[in-house]
């Protein structure tokens, strides 16, 4: 269990984390989402005491991280994969980390095997690929067999097999009653992995709810309707919080009401429906809706140096989607 109360972090005039309170419960995978610069990493660093909060407190299982007798047994953290001396081998790195807690070489070999690092364990970390570095970071986090696991972008740089492995691993660990706190930019991955989501934007908590609730609340449910009498249907449905968009004459995208209600309206007016499909929004849509206002680094064409415009034109489509 991780509990943050009024957590605030300022660097000079910049407020990275602004009065954030949340609880991460055991037995679940809690996802941590937010745009770049939203304060996710800073929050995670404060949990394990690498950054000191300007105000507020954060505890793990009721105590500040540094008050635990066996910190690595309490929390395993992957904060950045490159927190390793490049001149040392993965095996020696893990051995040195474990030695602080009396964790022996047998466990070191176990986590190496679990993370699939056997073939490179004796090589110097400096030559590791991003994926290998990430696996070593996960191995370090698992070393103390911790009750709480904090992973910042764990699937970053992993191959598809690795992504699935991380997903199964954290779900399995959560099912054992451990606390899992996970950040990721891969929304589809988060939708598959997390039970609960905390969304951070500009250092504040924008949402803190189960995945299903967040998707429903923010993206809402759209109903796709196909009718030869679409124009008539629009007239009947219009009003009271209902918004309708139409791309082709017979097709409508209706939000703000249910498929059931639309069907009843159509039946009462004796309108023909060819299709009536509720479309659930994705976590990605929900996330975009939530963070629209709080994205710190908007991608935009304005203000760019003319030299960059050429390159930017090709990205126009993507850029619209990001905004």
């Amino acid at each position, binding site marked *: 269990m991780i509990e943050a109360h009024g957590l605030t972090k300022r660097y000079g005039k910049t407020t990275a984390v602004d009065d954030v309170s949340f609880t991460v419960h055991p037995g679940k995978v809690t996802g941590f989402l937010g745009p770049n610069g939203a304060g996710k990493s800073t929050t995670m*660093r404060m949990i*394990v*005491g*690498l*950054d*000191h909060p300007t105000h507020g407190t954060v505890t793990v299982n009721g105590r500040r*991280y*540094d008050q*635990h*007798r*066996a*910190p*690595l*047994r309490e929390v395993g*953290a992957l*904060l*950045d994969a*490159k*927190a*390793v*001396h*490049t*001149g*040392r*081998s993965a095996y*020696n*790195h893990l*051995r*040195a*980390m*474990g*030695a*602080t*807690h*009396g*964790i*022996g*070489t*047998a*466990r070191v070999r*176990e986590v190496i*095997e*679990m*993370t*699939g690092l056997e073939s490179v364990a004796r090589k110097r970390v400096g030559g590791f690929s991003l994926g290998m570095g990430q696996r070593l970071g996960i191995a*370090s986090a*698992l*070393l*103390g*067999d911790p009750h709480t696991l904090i992973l910042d972008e764990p699937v970053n740089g992993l191959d598809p*097999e690795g992504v699935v*492995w991380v997903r*199964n*691993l954290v779900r*399995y*660990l959560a099912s054992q009653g451990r606390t899992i706190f996970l950040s990721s930019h891969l929304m589809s991955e988060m939708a598959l992995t997390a039970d609960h989501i905390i969304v951070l934007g500009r250092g504040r908590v924008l949402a803190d709810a189960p995945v299903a609730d967040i998707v429903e609340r923010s993206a809402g449910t759209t109903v796709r309707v196909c009718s030869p009498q679409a124009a008539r249907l629009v007239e009947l449905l219009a009003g009271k919080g209902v918004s309708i968009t139409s791309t082709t004459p017979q097709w409508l995208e209706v939000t703000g009401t249910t498929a059931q209600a639309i069907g009843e309206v159509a039946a009462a007016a004796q309108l023909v429906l060819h299709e009536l499909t509720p479309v659930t929004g994705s976590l990605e849509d929900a996330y975009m809706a939530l963070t629209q206002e709080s994205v710190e680094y908007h991608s935009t064409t304005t203000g760019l140096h003319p030299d960059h415009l050429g390159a930017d034109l090709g990205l126009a489509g993507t850029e619209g989607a990001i905004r």
Partner: protein
Amino acid sequence: MSTSVLLSPATSSQGNPPADDVRLTFPRIVRSEWIKFRTLRSTVWTLAITLLLMVGIVTMFSAIFASQEGAGNDGTDSTVVFTIAANLAQLAVVVLGVLVITGEYSTGMIRSTLAAVPRRLPALWAKGVVLAVSIFLVSTVAVGISLGVMQLFLGAKRLAPDPHDAETVRILVGVPLYLTAIALLAFAIGALMRHSAGALAAVLGLLLVVENLFLIPWKPLQHISPFLPGTAGSKILMPKAQIDAMSQGAVGTVLGPWQGYAVLLAWVVVLLTAAAVLLRRRNA
């Protein structure tokens, strides 16, 4: 990559302590730092260079002494070789002292270290202990080998250092003591600056440039000069006769060998304290 391996807790495997014994202790942190220390090529190399530099210099000078007819009549003179050797070896020792800590900052390793030891200070002290003990042992071995070499070259001429002479013994013991203190000085400055190049420049600049500038015959400087770390500490490497000769017409305080060494230790304590305070306060 199977999750089934996870079922076995950290402690089920043979050879590991029982579950309730997985916790932080200072001896374990020292052990961790020792593993880190000896698993880097740079540390191993720097220690080897320290040893080779000292033995090499002593061998060279002994050979020169041996070839000179009637050089020196008592053993004390030949101890000057140790002073020269220690002055050169201190360059390697400074590099090691700085890199032991700044290497962790430049690679990001420090975040792993401090996540494992969140109270932070035990990690700093453990690093200092490992560094100090290693340097002390290696330089003691270097002095031992050097003594053997001198006996070989100069024994017949009765020029080898006399282990029964109190002053000679003080100088021989002084070499590891001086190098250890200088290593800790460099370590403290490395911990304060957290940047390899900056800290190396600062320590070498202090020892090789600044302290020499303070020898300029200008009164205010000469009052401070005896208390600078290198100038004060290296008194322990000098024969009394040399200290007396240098004190002729000296303006500032003249420190004895042990007084000088105490001043160097005071610098180490002050700088390490500052490093400890900042380590607690700063974000990693």
